[in-house]
């Protein structure tokens, strides 16, 4: 039995205990690197950008110095399956007068930085079958295929990652707090559609990372780079040996290879070295640093630990510019998560069939509060004149409105962050009666992608940007 207590606290206590419990793995505390040029680090102009940034900071902001904001824009999707409690999911007014329904209350402290969007829908997901048929195309707006052959479309987060991901350690972070399912739903759609929200191509979802420790490693121990480095080390040794064995003529060719390997390895090393220097520098300046220890191996036993760790990892990744794109599946469609700490007996999916119940309101609020947690965390990280949140956009959404009716004629969407001043915030926007052509989810995606510098003519079923965003 888990004692009844406020589900949204108790986290600190667990974290400190975990610090003593961690198994293998290196304890790494990573600082926040305000103006240090971890972005653009591999370009020769990194130093000059940094200088310009420092100069701009001392003369009153980037805009005053006449340069484009040097701060990268970040984008994250947070998803919970099976809809929300529609009675308590609303927002009215704007700015300081923005009022929020009970489920959205966790966002109250940062309400000037959010947009609650009502009335959008994803037409390709309507009328083809409940659950996976409502989920497989949520972030792509593409048609999906029934039966054994999986066919969907690349999703907004991966489109952005393809454009901006080369500049960071990881193109994107794709995390989940629940293991995927396979098999077939009664609608004959594969359960893969219910289990993955990020798709890298029409026939392949991005693997979800459910283990916090591995997600952490992928960014902060730079595992991909480390692995490549060890391959390159080995190759270099072999090329050196060969170079001594072959004829003078061949030596030239092998040395060409050796030089190329060395160059690539240097890039990897430089990336790591710059990271360390940047960390030292930040420490010297005594700046506020958010840090976390490497999470323990395995799956956290408590869902609250799991969601918070995943949010922390996203926060840390955005802060240190290890990635600019993240997706976090909190609860998949047809979720089988349990919430004993909320006092709800049923599992997520069963509870969603009684979507207007108190229990399901608590579940909805619990997941929304993860977004609030992450947003506040990012908002506490100064960056230039604003905060990391100001340069980001977090998008929370579900695949339907009502779990009882499996109704996705409108779906809940909440945004947080201003994307570097390109997105006005503090608003409740309602498109429900704008006409079906003017309330497409993919229109919102086009509008958001514009603001992170990815200009597309079409995406999914949309070729127009969402009006009045």
């Amino acid at each position, binding site marked *: 039995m888990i004692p009844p207590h406020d589900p949204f606290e108790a986290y600190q206590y667990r974290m400190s205990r975990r610090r003593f419990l961690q198994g293998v793995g290196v304890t790494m505390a990573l600082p926040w690197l305000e103006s240090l040029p971890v972005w653009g680090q591999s370009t020769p102009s990194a130093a000059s950008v940094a200088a310009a940034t420092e100069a701009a900071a001392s003369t009153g902001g980037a805009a005053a110095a006449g340069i484009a904001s040097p701060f990268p824009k970040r984008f994250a999707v947070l998803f919970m399956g099976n809809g929300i409690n529609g009675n308590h999911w609303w927002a009215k007014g704007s700015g300081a007068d923005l009022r929020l329904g009970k489920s959205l209350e966790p966002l109250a402290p940062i309400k000037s930085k959010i947009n609650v969007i009502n009335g959008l829908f994803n037409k390709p997901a309507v009328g083809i079958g409940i659950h996976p048929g409502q989920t497989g195309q949520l972030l792509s707006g593409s048609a999906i295929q029934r039966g054994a052959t999986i066919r969907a479309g690349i999703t907004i987060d991966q489109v952005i990652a393809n454009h901006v991901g080369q500049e960071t350690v990881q193109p994107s972070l794709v995390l989940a707090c629940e293991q995927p399912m396979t*098999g077939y739903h009664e609608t004959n759609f594969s*359960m893969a559609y219910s289990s993955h929200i990020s798709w890298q191509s029409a026939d392949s979802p991005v693997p979800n990372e459910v283990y916090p420790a591995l997600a952490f490693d992928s960014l902060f121990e730079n595992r991909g780079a480390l692995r490549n480095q060890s391959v390159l080390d080995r190759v270099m040794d072999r090329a050196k040996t060969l170079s001594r064995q072959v004829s003078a003529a061949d030596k030239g060719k092998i040395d060409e290879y050796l030089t190329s*390997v060395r160059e690539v390895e240097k890039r990897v090393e430089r990336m790591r070295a710059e990271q360390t220097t940047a960390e030292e520098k930040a420490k010297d300046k005594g700046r506020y640093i958010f840090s976390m220890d490497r999470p323990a191996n395995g799956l956290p036993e408590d869902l609250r630990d799991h969601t918070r760790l995943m949010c922390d990892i996203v926060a840390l990744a955005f802060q240190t510019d290890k990635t600019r794109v993240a997706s976090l599946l909190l609860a998949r469609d047809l979720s089988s998560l349990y919430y004993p700490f909320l006092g709800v007996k049923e599992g997520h999916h069963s509870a969603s069939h009684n979507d207007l119940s108190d229990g399901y309101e608590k579940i909805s609020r619990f997941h929304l509060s993860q977004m609030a947690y992450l947003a506040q965390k990012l908002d506490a990280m100064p960056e230039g004149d604003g905060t990391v949140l100001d340069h980001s956009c977090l998008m929370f959404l579900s695949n339907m409105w009502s779990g009882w009716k499996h109704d996705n004629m409108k779906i809940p969407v909440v945004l947080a962050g201003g994307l570097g001043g390109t997105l006005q915030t503090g608003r409740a926007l309602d498109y429900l009666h704008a006409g079906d052509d003017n309330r497409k989810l993919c229109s919102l995606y086009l509008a958001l992608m514009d603001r992170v510098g990815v200009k597309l003519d079409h995406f999914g079923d949309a070729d127009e940007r969402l009006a009045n965003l």
Partner: protein
Amino acid sequence: MRIPPSASLLFIALGAVCARAGALTDHDLTQRFETKVRPLVNTYCTDCHSGKKPKGDLDLTQYQDLASVVDDYSEWAVALEKIASHDMPSEKAKKFPTDDEREELMAWIRDVRVAEARKHAGDPGVVLARRLNNAEYNYTIRDLTGVDLQPAREFPVDPANPMGFDNTGESLAMSPTLLNKYLQAARSVADCLVLKPHGIAFAPHPMLVETDRDKYCIDEIVSFYHRQPTDYADYFYAAWRYQHRAAAGQPHATLSEVAAATKVSPKYLATVWQLLDDAKEDVGPGAKLRTRWRALPATGSEAEIRAECAKLRDWVMDLRAKLEPRFPNITGVSGIPATAEPFLMWKNRQYATHRRTFDPDALQIGGKAKPVLIAMAKPKTSVAAADAVEEDAPSEAAPKRQGGDPDLFVPERNPDRYLAAFAHFCSVFPDAFYVQERGRNYLDKTKDKGRLLSAGFHNVMGYFRDDQPLSELVLDEKGRQELDSLWEDLDFVAAATKRTYVQFVFNESADAREIAKRAAERDVTKESQVRATMAAYLAKAQASHSAVAQQAIETHFTTVNATLRSIERARTEAEPQQLEAALAFAARAYRRPLTEAERADLVGFYRQTRQATGLGHEDAMRDLIVAILMSPDFCYRLDLSTGAGAVTMGAGGIPVQPLSDEALASRLSFFLWSSVPDAELAACARRGELHQPAVLMAQARRMLADPRSRALALEFGGNWLDFRRLEELNTVDRERFPTFTNALREAMFEEPVRLLSDVFSQNRSVLDLIYGHDTFVNAPLARHYGMPEPAGDAWVHVTDADRYDRGGLLPMAAFLTKNAPGLRTSPVKRGYWVVKRVLGEFIPPPPAAVPELPRDEAKTELPLRDMLARHRSEKSCAACHARFDSLGLVFEGYGPVGERRQVDLAGRPVDAHATFPHDVASGEGLAGLRDYIRGHRENDFVDNLCRKLLAYALNRSLILPDDATIDDMRSKLAANGYRFQTLVDCIVTSPQFLNRRAGAAPADSLVDAGDGR
């Protein structure tokens, strides 16, 4: 500048060798240089070719002795050509040599070449270490992994060497950017790695997410099913063939031979034959079938008999469907629904184990008319209160047949004979050999299509194997083992049972959940947890007094647990085998056995990866594959001295060393396949037999006949004839030529590949490439050529292509289109292509300022030929254009996309008549050009082909000492009816191919032959 000698001139030169063989010493040549050649040069040439700005950048005063000429022979080769064609001395010269003087000069230049070639005869030349080019990388990965992954498709295009080939160290460079792409490519290959119980394999797609793993294993199983002969009609036909073997003139054919000829299972044919042949059983469906089968006519076309057999098959299947036994749901267990996994699995097993039995209740015994169900009943899902087992009731909607069905009728008297006959019939003809898809309501086979191998669970995953009749009746021992191992893979590779069980715990089973809570999945699948969950289920079954339910639950959990445990064990036991398989992969990738040190090094890398980076077995294995593919031993072709024979001093003091058999195998396979040796070739090398000429030539012959030799047609042919990048061709105006589609462009590309491939693999005469009346077409190309269209996607060999003005390489649309600039033809480009690519003539590049021809032929006042004639009247242009325009004008009967035409785009009748260079002949169209080549240029074509093929095979530009091999190739070719295999035999047994240069190369032997065309 690398400029070649004219091939014809060389031909003369080689002929002269024999006559004057004794006179070509350095001493004689030096003397002739001093007494004859230098004075002539000084008299006629150095007025222009000397000083600060010598004409053509050639200062002839720099050549003071024989050695300096040898060093720079390519310049002299050009000079020879210019003198021979009377281009030099130029018209502006003040003095001209007499014919004798001209001949004196030319003879000396030729003699220098011959002397030099002989002095270093057999020099293998410098073959630089070369990285795999993009095509070789792709082919190699295909042959190493068994899947065509094309990891190099995003690599930048490889540069070609001066001879036009992209397979030499001269042109293939490495850069950090490219290395990064190599790294990505190696990763993408490693992502496809599949760890199997006894080794490794590769999937055609990444194996990173569970969906991918499922898909891979399921595809393997389903495609295995589809490969099996399971159509009854085929067996009835085979039995008919056997029955009438004597009439077909094969009185001694055995049943097995007939099975092999008709591609059916010999084992099952024997079973079917036995039933059809067994006259003792004279009642029941078997007897009916026998009667109908025997009534098949003894003679008849295969199609007719097969059609009749299909009717018999339909009758059997129809009857079999009516006799399929049905099994009930397990219901009435309080707290466990009928759709619970243990119960559904029980039901699946009932069906799977009774596919060769029948439902006696379906029979109509005696006179009473019994309704017979002909549509499947829906499974009833409602929970019955009392009875633990409930029959599936026929649904209200299911149509029924009233009255008797003669096929199901059994007389009341002595029904046992009939029942036995039905039993025999149903045991021979199962209601299904295998079940490849199953919906939720799987008795209703019309719903939920595409759920491959599904267990029929609601919403959650689950697979079920139902192929007992296939195993028992059709497969032999080997087939059974293969199928068993494919099903094992579904658990071993995709962890199907484990994941199904975990999902069951968290999604379906409240009991299991109470036990598991939110524990990590590894705990859920522990034996103790599985047993605890089973106990909870059993308690409910006991409480409801259902023995069937208890049995179902026990079987299910016990089976699941056994599978989980055996996979755990198998995984651990497999690790060393998989590592060993990776080492074998490395040996194949490196094209040689690994040394002990290399084995230790790779194993060390694997262990270190696991320890240092904390990776699991699978990730460490992937990194090991990456490390192998990134090793220079894989991505470079090096002729290492390891294992090679003793160094000897070759002619001219060049140290020569025979290649090891392994290196020779690699050279041979990259020559013919652009890829690594296969098992047979590698075995040959390992036995140390490959260097024997007979073995080498036999292997080459085998490899040319193999489909992989398509790479030779594509990579050699594509570079030689310059169509390798036709798919990028976008000069065609598709509005004016709407028939030019991507499909047509692909077909155009494919045509020369098919013809070359046919000539190479069928050992045809290489002259067929020029004079042949055949070609290959598919539907789009046939349409384009006005030929009858083959059906579907088929490519057909057209042997009377000359009827359509096609045949051989010359009139192929690929070349005609590529060498036309869009809205008009280009006799210049077409003629240039023929003389340069096909005949090997060197033409210097045009001067910077050339007048342009109009873009659109429809908008010109004069026909193109007249404009060209005007162009040729300019002296500066004439010298070159006279050498090729005419060879392009003959193609005027073919439009800008190679289509036949009578009028040009402006509506003027086309004129395909031409007078060939030096006015030696004239002719019209394709036939005229062929006649001209046959009469005057055939030697050029043959010489060019020999040189190109040798350079391609050796991975380097040619050098003077190669002349002897070229001469050998040409004379043997002529003696052997120009068969292609002759060329390959000559090349692979040539000293250049068999040896490598040992040690540092002396500088003077680096002289190239100036074959840089």
